């Protein structure tokens, strides 16, 4: 485990340095970049993508993927909207608000649980299962709303989306809290350990006595729960719910996880690095926005940025000092070196 965290640390240092470079670069090229308004707009934009990324993180760590996150968030938002509406829309009181939040979280967790059960008890690949869920939930949402918006909520819902506590936006605080919970869950609890182990080698974890089916079910339940949190934040931010809202975030969340150094095969990755990667992506988008470019250029550059980071990582694993054992990437050509005991060997891999 020690080497694992050392690799994590160098990764973290690299990412932080990158964030610093981006900050300085935009600071030099854009006069208005270092202003309070810029940072305020960033702190309002990070939480939605951030919460969805947290929902994506745990399945990726376990060697899977959850492609249904955006629509689980939508459906949870719809549930909340429906409860609020049935309590009188704008006149709904705080009790109705609490019931609505509980209902939204419940629906998110329930969908996640169902997905987890299917992943755990059939041999189907999580990509396929979550893809089917994505199509299904998209359909159910469109069927229920007929593609329209649902709005008309009590005033304090909007305040929750735009309000600040001690100068910090409420959604940001919520995101920070969730990230902290995820960090503790993944590094300090038996469940977090099991998630990492399943990501490294599911069969070995099973033989080692981990109830892999239970853990897999929990992984997707937690993911669904976090999607629901994201759905609630989206509802509060836009003061409306529309199915398909945030759809474009789906692959960005995967991108953020990979940028944050999470192993695409699972088993390795840290919440802190992913949060830094998210901030970096947001800084790029905001900076470009100030320079007058639109979101599409930012999207394109996010893609280019991920490729660049992966190439730098490859150069680093190839030309760095030899004493740190290189897991399985960037191995020099020629016959493979003998595998030291305790290092997993991957014979089957999506490349």
């Amino acid at each position, binding site marked *: 485990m020690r080497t694992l965290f050392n690799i994590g640390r160098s990764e973290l240092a690299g990412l932080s340095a990158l964030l610093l470079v981006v900050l300085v670069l935009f600071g030099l090229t854009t006069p208005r970049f270092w202003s309070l308004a810029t940072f305020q707009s960033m702190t309002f934009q990070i939480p939605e993508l951030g919460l969805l990324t947290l929902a994506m993180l745990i399945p990726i760590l376990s060697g899977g993927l959850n492609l249904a996150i955006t629509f689980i968030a939508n459906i949870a938002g719809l549930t909340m909207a429906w409860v609020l509406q049935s309590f009188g829309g704008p006149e709904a009181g705080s009790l109705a608000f609490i019931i609505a939040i509980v209902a939204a979280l419940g629906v998110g967790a329930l969908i996640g649980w169902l997905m987890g059960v299917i992943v755990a008890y*059939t041999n189907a690949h999580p990509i396929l*299962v979550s893809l089917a869920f994505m199509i299904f939930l*998209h359909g159910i949402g469109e069927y229920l709303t007929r593609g329209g918006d649902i709005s008309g909520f009590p005033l304090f819902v909007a305040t929750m989306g735009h309000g600040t506590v001690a100068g910090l936006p409420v959604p940001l605080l919520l995101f920070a809290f969730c990230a902290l919970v995820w960090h503790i869950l993944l590094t300090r609890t038996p469940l977090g350990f099991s998630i990492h182990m399943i990501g490294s080698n599911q069969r070995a974890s099973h033989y080692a006595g981990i109830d892999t089916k239970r853990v897999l079910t929990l992984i997707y339940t937690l993911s669904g729960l976090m999607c629901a949190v994201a759905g609630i934040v989206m509802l509060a931010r836009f003061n409306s719910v529309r199915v398909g809202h945030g759809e474009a975030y789906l*692959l960005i969340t995967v991108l953020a996880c990979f940028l944050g150094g999470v192993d695409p095969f699972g088993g390795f990755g840290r919440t802190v690095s992913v949060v830094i990667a998210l901030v970096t992506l947001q800084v790029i988008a905001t900076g470009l926005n100030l320079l007058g470019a639109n979101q599409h*250029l930012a999207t394109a550059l996010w*893609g280019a940025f991920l490729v660049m980071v*992966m190439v730098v990582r490859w150069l680093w694993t190839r030309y760095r000092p030899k004493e740190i054992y290189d897991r399985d990437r960037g191995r020099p050509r020629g016959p493979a070196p003998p595998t030291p005991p305790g290092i997993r060997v991957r014979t089957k891999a999506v490349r």
Partner: protein
Amino acid sequence: MLRLPRSPEAWLTLVIIGMCLILGVATDTFWTLANAFDLLNASAINVIFAVGLLVVLIAGGIDISFAVAASVVQYVTALAVMQIGGGNWPIALLIAALVGFGLGAINAGLIHYFRIISIVVTIATFNAFFGFLMFFTRGVSIYNLPDWWLDRIIFFEHETASGDFIEIRLPAVVMAVMVLLTWFLINRFNLGRQLFALGDNPDGAQRIGINVAGMHFLAYGWLGVCAGIGGLMQAHYVQEVVPNALYGRELDVLAAVVLGGARLGGGKGTILGAILGVILIAIAENGLNLLGVSPYAFKMVVGAVILIAITTSNLDTRGLLSRRQRA
């Protein structure tokens, strides 16, 4: 105990037959030649994409970027033929195949030379392709395509007794050619065996002297060619080039191909399975249409059909039993 068929192709065929029987009873238009040919013409583009993606999956990779790559190809080809003042199908197909191959080669190069995992590369190029396309085109569609591009080309036409026309149009013929070429590539050529070997065991494939770089360029390049030609057909089918028309198609096609038994991870997959996967989804949508179900419910039912197909074909009954015994 009833033994369920083990191969995904057999299972899919059973599901499709079951759906056809139900639809045949529920509607009187499903079992008509005209409807069968409508299905054929409408699903041609997805089949072209599917066989291309199948090659990449067999070689042990995955590609998320091909649908937006197809949009890039559409746009570039449209601009190119308008630049040279006219053009015709052979020129357009050539340009589309070349540009498609080029975009696939970008993926292959990054995957091979920098040892980045395919899903990371293609999610990055997905964003890069789509972002740059929308940025440079400003989201503007092209409607004034040349006439030869828009004219329906009908290879076979026949009027049935009931007065319906059955037609085989250009996309269906191109689909047949691409399916046949891909079938030859993976089943009849040595290269195909090498693709399977690479997907099944990358280290082993390298040690027995397979040209891994060549295989990567072949697989992603071939998907690029299929994406380019499929994109051209899609523009022909809808009579316009819209930059974000194919956005999101990649996941639908991926679901169909994986449903057809291609293994995420490589080394396994058949053309028949991929086509059956596409057909299953196409029939589900077609049937709902004929049943007069609200279009808003389409995706819901299609998703449910995929879920049922996955759950029933993969259910690990032994696992369930042993768990029950333990409890």
